[in-house]
C-alpha cells in the first residue's frame, strides 16, 4: 500500500535516526547494509502502521507513537544502580542461560550439548554463516515490526539445535531494559530446530516504570520435521514502554509448536504471532493472557496459515481488562486449498473489570479447503454475578471471589505450559497482579 500522507514526528525521527545510525549498526558487509536499507524502505514507503492498515485497525501506531526513541547502537553498561536492576520473575522456573541487558549485551552460560549459538552482534560483525537464517521465518513485508527490526537490529541470538537432539532443561533468556534513559532497543532471536530436535525456551522481558523506552523484538523460528519447540514469553515491560513483538514460525511435518505469552507490561504493547504450517500433520498450540490496567493498550494479533494437510491448531487467549485499559485480540486462521483435514479451534475470552475497560475481539476464518474442521469463539463481559454470589455464599469476600475467578480464568490458558515450575511462575504473576489491584 502506498503512503502519501504527511510524515508524523516519529516517522521523521525514525528516518533521520536510520540515516545516522546505519554506518554504526553492526555488520559492515555491504549486503547487510543493503538489507537494512531495503527493510527500512518499507517504513519510508508505508509510514508507521495506522488505522488504515486492517491488521492495525485497533492499534494505530501512528497515533500511539508520538516520538521515536534514540536507537541504542553501542554496548552500554547498565545505568540502573545495582540492586535496583529489574529481576526476572521467571528465575524460579529455570536457571538463566542468556541475558540481554537493554537488548544489547549477551551473556551466555554454558549450554547443553547439541545447542549452538552466536549472538546477532557477533554474527553480523564476523559475517557468521548462521546469519543466513535471519529473515527466513520472519519476513519484512509481512509486518512493519519485522521491517523495523531488520533495519535497526543490534543484538539478540541465533540458536540452533542439531538433528535429533532433545534438550530437556528449559533455556531461559532474560532481556531486562536496564537504562534510565528512554532509548529504543531492537533485538532478534532466531531459533532453528533441525529434524527431530526438541527445545523449550522461556523468555522474559522486563523494565523500569516511568521511562518511555521502546522495545522491538522479533523471534523467528524454523521448526523442522518431527521437531518440537516450546516457547513461553513474558512481557513485563515498564509502564511507559512501547513493546513491539513479532513471533514468526514455520512448522515442518509432524512437528509441534507450543507457544504461550503473557502480556502484562508496557503502555502500548503489540505482539504478533505469524505461523505457517508448511509440513503435514503438524500441531500448533498458541495460548496467551493479557492483564491490562490503567491506560494500558495491549494487542495480540495472530495469523495461523495452514498450508499443508492434516495440521491441527488450538488457540486460547484470555484477557483481563481493568481501569481505562484496552485489549485487542485478532486471530485469523487461514486454510489453503491444499490443507485438507485441517483441524483448527480458536477462542478468545475477555473479562472487563471496569466501566472504562475496552476489549476488541476479532476472530476470523479464511478457508479454501473443503474437508476441514474449524471453529472460533469470542466472548467479552463482566464477571458472572451468579458465580460470584455462589462463592460469596460460601464465605469468600467479594474481592477474594473475584480474584479466585480471574485466577481460574487465566489459569486455563496458563495450563498449556508444560513445565510445572514455569506454570507456577505465571500463575504467581496473575496472583501478584490481582493483589496489586485489590491494594490500589
Amino acid at each position: 500500500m502506498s503512503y502519501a500522507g504527511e510524515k508524523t514526528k516519529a516517522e521523521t525521527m525514525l528516518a533521520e535516526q536510520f540515516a545516522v545510525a546505519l554506518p554504526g549498526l553492526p555488520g559492515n558487509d555491504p549486503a547487510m547494509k543493503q538489507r537494512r536499507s531495503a527493510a527500512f524502505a518499507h517504513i519510508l514507503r508505508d509510514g508507521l502502521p495506522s488505522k488504515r492498515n486492517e491488521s492495525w485497525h485497533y492499534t494505530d501506531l501512528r497515533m500511539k507513537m508520538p516520538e521515536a526513541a534514540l536507537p541504542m547502537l553501542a554496548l552500554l553498561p547498565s545505568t540502573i544502580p545495582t540492586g535496583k536492576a529489574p529481576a526476572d520473575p521467571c528465575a524460579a522456573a529455570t536457571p538463566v542461560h542468556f541475558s540481554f541487558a537493554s537488548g544489547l549485551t549477551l551473556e551466555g552460560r554454558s549450554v547443553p550439548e547439541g545447542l549452538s549459538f552466536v549472538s546477532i552482534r557477533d554474527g553480523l560483525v564476523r559475517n557468521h554463516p548462521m546469519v543466513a537464517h535471519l529473515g527466513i521465518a520472519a519476513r519484512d513485508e509481512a509486518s512493519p515490526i519485522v521491517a523495523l527490526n531488520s533495519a535497526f537490529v543490534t543484538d539478540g541470538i541465533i540458536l540452533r539445535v542439531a538433528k535429533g537432539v532433545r534438550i530437556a532443561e528449559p533455556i531461559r533468556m532474560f532481556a531486562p531494559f536496564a537504562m534510565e534513559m528512554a532509548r529504543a532497543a531492537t533485538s532478534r532471536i532466531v531459533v532453528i530446530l533441525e529434524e527431530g530436535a526438541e527445545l523449550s525456551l522461556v523468555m522474559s522481558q522486563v523494565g523500569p516504570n516511568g521511562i518511555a523506552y521502546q522495545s522491538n523484538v522479533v523471534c523467528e523460528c524454523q521448526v523442522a520435521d518431527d521437531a518440537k519447540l516450546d516457547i513461553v514469553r513474558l512481557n513485563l515491560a515498564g509502564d511507559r514502554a512501547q513493546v513491539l513483538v513479532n513471533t514468526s514460525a514455520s512448522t515442518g511435518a509432524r512437528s509441534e509448536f507450543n507457544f504461550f505469552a503473557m502480556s502484562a507490561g508496557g503502555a502500548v504493547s503489540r505482539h504478533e504471532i505469524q505461523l505457517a504450517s508448511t509440513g503435514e500433520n503438524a500441531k500448533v498450540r498458541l495460548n496467551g493472557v493479557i492483564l491490562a490496567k490503567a491506560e494500558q493498550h495491549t494487542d495480540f494479533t495472530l495469523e495461523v496459515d495452514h498450508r499443508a494437510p492434516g495440521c491441527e491448531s488450538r488457540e486460547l487467549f484470555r484477557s483481563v481488562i481493568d481501569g481505562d485499559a484496552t485489549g485487542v485480540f485478532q486471530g485469523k486462521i487461514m486454510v489453503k486449498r491444499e490443507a485438507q483435514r485441517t483441524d483448527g479451534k480458536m477462542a478468545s475470552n475477555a473479562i472487563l473489570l471496569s466501566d472504562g475497560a475496552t476489549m476488541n475481539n476479532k476472530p476470523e476464518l479464511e478457508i479454501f479447503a473443503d474437508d476441514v474442521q474449524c471453529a472460533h469463539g469470542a466472548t467479552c463481559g463482566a464477571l458472572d454475578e451468579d458465580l460470584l454470589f455462589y462463592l460469596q455464599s460460601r464465605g469468600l469476600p467479594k474481592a477474594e471471589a473475584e480474584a479466585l475467578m480471574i485466577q481460574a480464568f487465566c489459569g486455563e490458558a496458563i495450563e498449556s505450559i508444560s513445565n510445572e515450575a514455569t506454570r507456577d511462575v505465571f500463575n504467581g504473576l496473575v496472583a501478584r497482579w490481582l493483589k496489586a489491584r485489590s491494594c490500589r
Partner: protein
Amino acid sequence: MLEIRNLHVKIADSDKAILNGLTLTVKAGEVAAIMGPNGSGKSTLSYVVSGKEDYEITEGDILLNGQSILDMEAHERAAAGLFLAFQYPLEIPGVATMTFLKAAMNAQRKSRGEAEISPTDFMKAVRGAADKLGINQDMLKRALNVGFSGGEKKRMEILQMALLQPKFCILDETDSGLDIDALRIVSEGVNALRAPDRGMLVITHYQRLLDHIVPDTVHVMAKGRIVKSGGPELAHDLEKNGYAAYVGEAA
C-alpha cells in the same frame, strides 16, 4: 434461631413484588420444610436470606440468633453461620474443588478471627466427609462442579455443608434431579448434620424428600407468604390434595 418478620421483597429496579409479608420462625434443632407451587417465591426466599444482591427488601427483617442480618453481605452471613445448598449448584471452570473448599473454609475462619486450617486437618476433614457422601478423589481434583452429574453436584453441596458446619442451613430443592439412590445418600448426609444447636429450612415441591429428611414443621408458601403451618402430616395432605386450596386462600 432464624426469624423472618413480615418480609416484603421486590426485584431490584422493578416493581415486581415476590415476597409479601412472609413471617417464619425456625428454632435451634428444628427442621422446617417449606412447600409450595412453582412461582410462590421459595427460591427467592433462600436467596434473600443468603444475601443475594438482586433483591430489594421494602419491609420487614431477618434475624439470625436475634441479630438482624439485613446489613450483612453474603460472605458475612456465611461466616455468621448461614449456608445455602443451591438448587442449581454453579460450575466454576478452572477452580479445583479442593482449592475452593480450602478457600471457603479459611475465609470463614478468617472473618471469625480464627487461624487457617492446617493442611493435614483439611485433608482429613475432606476425606472423612467425602467418604460418607461417596465422593471420590477424582471428583475432588476436578474443577468445581464442572461436568458433574446432577446427583454429584448435590452431594458436593452437602460436602460443603458438612465441612463448613453452619449454624443454619437452607436446602433449596435439594431433591431436584436426584434418583432414588442419590436422594438417599444426600438425605443421610443432611440427617447426619441434624443437631440441637443447628436449624434447617428444607425447600421442596414434593413429599418424597420429606420421607427421608423428616421435618419437625411444615409450612405452605403461596404468593410470597406462609399460608399454612403444621406438622409432618401437612406434607402428606399436600401430596394428596395439591396446592389448589392454598393458592386460592392467598388470593
